[in-house]
């Protein structure tokens, strides 16, 4: 009997090709689309607290996935994970912004939903593996450990979002697109006759249509939890007032409402005081960071002292050479080899050694020199 694999399908071309490839390779494929948020902002009848949650997981997306399943002849189901996604991803997203941090919901969704809740569903359905359309690779080394690696297509590499996967998860996960480029994936989709071969990539966070995070946060929180305050320069002079700390992220330039000769950027968010500190670009630097909720793919790594790594502090930032010191309580000290850009509390920081992801965590704060 062939191994059974549960493939998470969004209706996009990547997860569709991932499922199709596994089917062609002889796996017993079960396709699932996850219903994570409400398709219509006002779909909830009276009694639900708020007109929550924007547009994703639409009927059309699920139909695209269903058509792929029909064409490739494997069973397909829509599963309802709205409760878990709401509690573990959306609530966290809102709380982080309200606390002056910049969350990364894709990392949380992978950790809490795809590789946790979906895995227990996979076990209930007697699946041996979970597969997704992520661009990343898993290799098994001579040490018998599983290694999470960057994708062959550097421009699409999504290993950053997957750093929370440990040995248990890596052992039962398949990334069929890890060695393919996006062009190859689209070509494969056309060869297989998949109707969504030329569907555009999704660009935004799936549950925030239009990308207006501030509005989403306001719609999904109590009015009294919004923290307005002052915009200050480095010397503490008030430059302007603002409507809430959730409207800002470190490095942001637009929307500050300040007219000065020199462009100013958000350097720090002091959520408790409600203060946003701005500075010219040259002052947006840091020497390293403290990470929390740190995990490593190799459980032995913790005993090795300072580890030379390259750290990515945002998905689209180039990696920075750094020294990683794992500390107790799931924390780590990351000291950049040379002065780096300002770090953004709440974002994931991911540790690479060459092609390999050795672990990662969430940025708690910058360190002073």
């Amino acid at each position, binding site marked *: 009997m062939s191994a059974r694999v549960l493939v998470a399908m969004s209706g996009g071309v990547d997860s569709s090709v991932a499922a199709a490839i596994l089917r062609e390779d002889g796996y017993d494929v079960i396709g699932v689309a996850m219903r994570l948020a409400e398709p219509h902002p006002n779909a909830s009848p009276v009694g639900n607290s708020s007109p929550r949650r924007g547009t994703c997981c639409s009927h059309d997306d699920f139909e695209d996935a*269903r058509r792929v399943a029909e064409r490739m002849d494997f069973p397909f189901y829509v599963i309802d994970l709205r*409760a878990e996604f709401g509690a573990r991803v959306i609530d966290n997203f809102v709380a982080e912004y309200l606390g002056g941090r910049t969350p990364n919901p894709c990392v949380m969704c992978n950790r809490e939903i795809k590789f946790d809740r979906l895995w227990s*569903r996979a076990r209930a359905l007697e699946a041996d593996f979970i597969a997704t359309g992520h661009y990343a690779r898993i290799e098994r080394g001579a040490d018998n450990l599983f290694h999470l690696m960057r994708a062959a297509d550097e421009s699409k590499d999504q290993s950053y979002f997957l750093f929370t996967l440990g040995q248990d998860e890596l052992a039962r996960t398949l990334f069929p697109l890890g060695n393919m480029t996006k062009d190859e994936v689209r070509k494969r989709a056309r060869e297989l006759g998949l109707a969504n071969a030329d569907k555009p990539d999704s660009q935004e966070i799936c549950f925030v249509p239009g990308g207006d995070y501030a509005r989403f946060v306001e719609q999904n929180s109590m009015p009294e939890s919004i923290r307005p305050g002052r915009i200050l320069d480095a010397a503490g002079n008030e430059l302007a007032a603002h409507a809430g700390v959730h409207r800002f992220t470190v490095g942001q330039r637009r929307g500050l409402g300040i007219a000065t000769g020199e462009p100013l950027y958000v350097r720090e968010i002091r959520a408790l005081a409600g203060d946003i500190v701005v500075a010219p670009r040259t002052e947006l630097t840091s020497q390293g960071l403290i990470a929390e909720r740190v995990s490593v793919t190799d459980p032995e790594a913790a005993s090795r002292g300072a580890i030379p790594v390259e750290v990515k502090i945002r998905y689209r930032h180039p990696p920075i050479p750094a020294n990683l010191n794992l500390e107790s309580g799931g924390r780590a000290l990351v000291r950049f080899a040379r002065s780096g850009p300002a770090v953004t509390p709440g974002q994931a920081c991911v540790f690479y050694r060459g092609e390999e992801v050795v672990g990662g965590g969430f940025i708690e704060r910058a360190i002073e020199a």
Partner: protein
Amino acid sequence: MAIYLDHNAGAPLRPQAAAALSLFIADAGGNPASVHRAGQRARRMLEDARVRIAALVGASPRQIVFTSGGTESNNLAIFGAAMNASLRSKVVSSAIEHSSAREPLGDLERRGMEIVRLTPDSDGKIASSSVIEAIDSTTSLVTLGMANSEVGTLQDFEGIAERARSAGALFHVDAAQAAGRVPVDVDAIGCDLVTISGHKFGAPAGIGALYVRDAARIAPLMHGGPHERGLRAGTPNLAGAIAMGAAAKAAGDALAVEASRIGTLSGLLLSRLRAGIPGLGLNGPEFGRIPNTLNLTFPGVLGESLLIALDLEGVEVSMGSACAAGSVEPSHVLRAMGKSAAQARSSLRISLGWNTTAAEIDAAADIIARVWRRVAATEPVTSQHAAGAAP
């Protein structure tokens, strides 16, 4: 070969209906409204079918209006009655009706009508005394399901028809799940309108009928030619009607035998599952259901997960009502019966039918108990899943 236990969603085509469809294909071509002989042949086929459907519910053939199915029949009954008695502002119904009645009622409510939705007891039964009490001189319509589609509870309509008549209201019975499975007699009930759905008893989907005691008392929704005594314009679905006539005759002829056989099988399945699944709950009364329907709460699992796992093992059942996206919503019927959201999310509907065999029930009992054990062990329900984010 899969074991199909979802007859309340739709029964497989009866062989008699398939044979009637082949006859239609061989002799296709006429419009029942045409004067020529092709039209006359088509008309005869249509009217023969009408006779058979009328016989299933003890009606006169001229009181049967063909529709596209149960949903259209409910819409025609509800809007047709309310629009025809536009000076009356109230409709009496219940909280456990099918969406094809619920949504029309919601629409009437948005247009300013008063909708009384009576709450059932914990078995899904509506007290007829509460219906009688709710009817007054402003009531245009009483609309109630005869057998609930999700839990199978049969209603007792004692005294409702008399009260409705004396108040000048119409009484509509949605018999989509009852007709062809238990005796339905329009005169014994004394009702004015009855919904009949073809594919619940082995006709193809896309054909249904509405019994209309007095055509003058409802307004049509479809306007056009004078078809169906002016109540439903448009050339009828002749192929569907012929097949529905054949299925109605087959179901009617076998009614007592089938009901007893299916009742025995569902009773056997229930006792086997109770033995294999500690804490299993039956939703609906022990007695007083249509014989084919079991709505069960499976402890410690999500119904959605069990449903998919069973499908992969070849046992086809259902949960609540499917939403547009293809996932499932917890049942409003179970909630109205006082079950918690968690119980509703752990419940599945198993519905047997005319072609269910003893061997299938024997196999299904083993598979369901085994798959429940596995799902309960691997994906136990937490309070977070069970409570749900949406109502």
